């Protein structure tokens, strides 16, 4: 079940790279937040619920309310983006296998980096916040693989401070 949740989070992250509409992307992010919170729920249920409420409900809703159109096409050659995403996944999986990391941790690192790739490669107004939100879901997944999560770390992972800041900055700029 936990392994399936990690795989689903990663698949949704890949799907986000080709989504064209912001509302579809927000739904995908919400679903991703639910899948990412599952492994964390085993060790810290309250943190997992808070993470889902903020990353899966509040921020995607805010994103949809602030947006009024479809996401534009990728700034760079789509082939290049997919090649970069594929190379990233291959490198992370091989490094994770080398150092003996678990599959949840490898999936979490991959989701975080794919989110960063999404934030950096698309040029429209809202996608950076979406990419960072997806990255935050990756961090929740990594926290779920952590054997001893401190209270401060749980707070930093559950509360999407950076995506929230970027979203607020974009709202103010508008």
């Amino acid at each position, binding site marked *: 079940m936990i392994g399936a949740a990690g795989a689903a989070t990663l698949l949704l992250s890949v799907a986000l790279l080709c989504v064209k509409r912001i509302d579809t992307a927000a739904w995908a992010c919400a679903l991703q937040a639910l899948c990412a919170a599952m492994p964390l729920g085993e060790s810290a249920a309250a943190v997992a619920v808070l993470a889902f409420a903020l990353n899966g409900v509040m921020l995607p809703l805010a994103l949809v309310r602030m947006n009024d159109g479809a996401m534009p096409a990728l700034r760079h050659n789509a082939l290049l983006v997919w090649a970069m995403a594929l190379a990233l996944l291959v490198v992370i999986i091989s490094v994770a296998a080398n150092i003996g990391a678990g599959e949840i941790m490898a999936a979490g*690192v991959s989701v975080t980096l794919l989110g960063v790739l999404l934030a950096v490669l698309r040029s429209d107004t809202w996608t950076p916040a979406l990419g960072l939100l997806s990255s935050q879901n990756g961090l929740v997944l990594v926290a779920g693989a*952590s054997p001893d999560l401190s209270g401060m770390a749980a707070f*930093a992972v559950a509360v999407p401070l950076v995506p929230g*800041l970027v979203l607020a900055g974009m709202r103010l700029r508008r």
Partner: protein
Amino acid sequence: MSGALALIVVALPFISAIVLAFIASWRIGAWINTGSTSLQFVVAFALAWRTGVAEAHLVLLTSLVAMTVSWFDRRDVAAALVSRSLNRQRARFYHVGYQLLIGAIQAATLADDPILIWLALVVAVAAAAVVTGAAKDTAASAAASRLLLLCGVGLMLALLGTLLLGMAPELAGWFLLLGYAGVAGMVPLQFWIVSAAAEGMPSGAIIVSTLLPNVPMLLFMRLSIASGLLIAFGLASLLLGAVALWARLDWRRGVALAGMAQLGMVAFAIGVAAKPVAWLHLILLGLTRSAVLQSRNNDMIAWLAFALLPLYALYLLAEPTVAVSAWLLVPLAAGVLLATSALVGRCPSGVAADWATATPVWLQLAIVTLLAFALPALAAG
């Protein structure tokens, strides 16, 4: 006693920010800003005197630069109000952001817990965006957005690295370095620092581009990151910054790029296990960069001190670099010579004439001279 002093240094800017949020008059706000930073400098001096630890000296540097900038930023705020690039509400936001930024930098410098440092840096980045975007023009707003996005990406990578510290330290080092290098305005997320330095309010830009990058450098010294990575990132920043300096840029962008190149030298120094040199260069860079920016490109001596600093660091770094690998001296020396010659070629003529500009510039240059001559001799002794 030292704990109480540290608490005051961190709490004072946050309390000042709360007070400033309720002050409508920009003149009173500017006086509170100046009073708070001056008081903070006195407390930081007492903290450094009592403890003598490296972090306390960085706290002292931060409060010194914040104080000297705040003494004269009334001129900038008044000029911006006249040119209508600021209104009274934005001037209030600017002062609140200024104090929050200083408080968050001090908190990140004095904190021990990596997550607490990360949280403090999130506050610092948010405050830096407020300070940069305070002016009412499109370029400043775009610079603030770029700062938020690139530092945000850096912070996400840094949090990933922090979470991985206990589980996969090898992987954690990569992400910590990539992430915090972004917050420091180094390669590969360097673009924000050039636009923030050029487009923000002049006094705010000094704080953002001079003080914010110091915290990640302190972290690189504390964390055990692979030396090869630090050397590679340091050389990449140095060489890219040095080459970019040859482009036709305005002087504020030039100072930002030269700062990035010299931060690369600090990272390189940490990589070759020359931490005392890294410390000295970080402190001298902070002071000379602040002096050049405060002189508004009107002081030849400040500019020359800033331009020749890489040569001085190269002299100190030669021996530790050869101890690691003599070949590393080639790219290091090439970067230093490129950067120094580009900077010397842009040197202004004359010195700061009015006392308002000259006082902080000469104060900082005097400290630079004292440290540059005294510290290596003390270390050798």
